[in-house]
């Protein structure tokens, strides 16, 4: 691999620079410039807009709620994601390919469809399963559990898609060696498998966290968007924007974007250089 990158790097014709310019221009127009404009608008009046939203109890509640939901969803997705990855890579069972295909569904289906589907199942009055839960004292739709559920659904494949290739690459031999040395299933997982897939899991967690914080469509449908109760940060952005509070909308959007950027920066800083 090292040789190949070396040969590519030595071949630098004028065409290379043209390609670079195209790619750079594309990314600037599509990503960097728009995001930079959000930042610019946020600080158009200095720190006033940021100060305003951070002192507004409803916005602060929304930010906290977003974080709570995202963290809960990420924890759930990490535990199940690693479990399902192990199942997919290490075991053979009928229906495995179907399961694997099903796991991509949350990425291909529009979040708004996810939201509606969840309402159909867990809706308090007319849902298939909702009334039973409601009579047991658990409200799902228009409450935090439903919002966590929707977020878990849309971010479901992210950990799995990061961990599965790593598990496949690591192979089974280290685990078999650990077994032959006397380690049980849990000891092998904790001492051998988990350290080997660590960076896959970290990447999956970061992607899931970013995706969960930014979820809008599915959460909007299942939350009911009640101010100060079930309104998340993304919903605040929309609300403020529609109500001509552009400064507040940009400031909240800026905070959301910063959290995502921070996640990625932190990971790329702490991740060691590939030893191979």
């Amino acid at each position, binding site marked *: 691999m090292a040789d190949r990158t070396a040969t590519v790097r030595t071949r630098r014709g004028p065409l290379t620079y043209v390609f670079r310019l195209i790619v750079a221009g594309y990314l600037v127009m599509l990503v960097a410039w728009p995001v930079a404009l959000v930042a610019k608008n946020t600080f158009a009046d200095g720190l006033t807009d940021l100060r305003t939203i951070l002192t507004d109890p409803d916005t602060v509640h929304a930010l906290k709620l977003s974080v709570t939901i995202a963290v809960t969803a990420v924890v759930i997705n990490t535990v199940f994601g690693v479990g399902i990855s192990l199942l997919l890579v290490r075991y053979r069972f009928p229906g495995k390919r179907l399961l694997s295909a099903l796991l991509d569904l949350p990425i291909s289906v529009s979040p708004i469809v996810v939201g509606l589907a969840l309402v159909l199942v867990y809706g308090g009055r007319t849902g298939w399963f909702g009334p039973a839960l409601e009579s047991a004292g658990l409200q799902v739709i228009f409450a935090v559990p439903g919002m966590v559920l929707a977020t878990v659904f849309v971010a479901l494949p992210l950990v799995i898609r990061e961990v599965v290739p790593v598990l496949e690459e690591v192979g089974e*031999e*280290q685990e*078999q*060696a*650990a*077994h*032959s*040395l*006397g*380690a*049980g299933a849990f*000891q092998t997982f904790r*001492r*051998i498998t988990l*350290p*080997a897939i660590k960076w896959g899991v970290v990447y999956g967690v970061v992607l899931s966290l970013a995706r969960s914080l930014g979820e809008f469509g599915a959460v909007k449908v299942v939350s009911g968007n009640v101010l100060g109760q079930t309104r998340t940060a993304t919903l605040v952005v929309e609300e403020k924007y529609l109500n001509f509070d552009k400064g507040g909308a940009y400031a909240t959007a800026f905070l959301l974007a910063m959290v995502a950027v921070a996640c990625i920066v932190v990971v790329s800083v702490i991740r060691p250089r590939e*030893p*191979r």
Partner: protein
Amino acid sequence: MSIEIANVSKRFGDFVALDDVSVSIPSGQLTALLGPSGGGKSTLLRIIAGLERADSGRVDIEGVDATDLPPQKRNVGFVFQHYAAFKHLSVRRNVAFGLEIRKRPKAEIRDRVDELLALVHLGQFADRLPSQLSGGQRQRMALARALAVKPTVLLLDEPFGALDAKVRKELRDWLRRLHDEVNVTTVFVTHDQEEALEVADEIVVINDGRIEQIGSPDDLYDRPANEFVMRFLGPVTKLGDRLVRPHDLLIATGPGEPGDVPGRITRVTRVGFEMRVEIDTADGPVTATATRNQFAGLNLAVGSSVVLRVTPDVDAGRFDTDRVEVVGAQP
């Protein structure tokens, strides 16, 4: 008897990896499972280790029925072809792994690991990561790791297969000496007949999921049970109806004795100290080898007429004709 395998069969889908195999592997010895790729030898080793389950049959290790025991309860050491080093752990922690799992006191672990690292000559590499070692060093580390838990049996799956020829030869000698020192019952899988002949006390030849022959290296080489074993263990040529090794053929000139086969030399190749002579006979081409000095004494060249006979005290190559196979022939 240390490892008793009785009527073990294993299929992978339609592929029969092992077909009703029974074999006893003696205690304290170094046994080779030898055979061509896909013949079932690795599967047998993995069944002994518990990494694979037999479809039927029974495995006893030192008198304990291990058929249904998971690998972690069998107390076997297993060494993989590609080392299976724990990449995130130092050499020392790799070797200590089995002892840490067994919750031995720290001081005991330290002493045992030091002792083993000295045994495999890796003392000065204790704090390195496996990625900082060469292939041969990694395999020695894997061996130390397997030996650390004082296994009942040590199993090695093509242990030197991924190493280059020179290191392979060094490690081969070293394994033999190590075994004489440690004396643990050892089974290793190989497809290299030279490796098996050189290192093993006993060789089990496996092909097509069945055992072809069990015996000492001398038994196998001098008295192969069938054509497959004979072909697999070294070069062969056909003189009339009989399979012989080219170095067991005598080349002579003149009228010869009764039973000699006449022929004409068609080609002479020199490979180092050895002369490889191809001779056309009435039954087809035959290859014979001689040392350079022998050949020079005969004063022969391409086109010379010669007679061939088998060295008198050679038995190999007379088989019952009920199972003659031509598959898996070695050059």
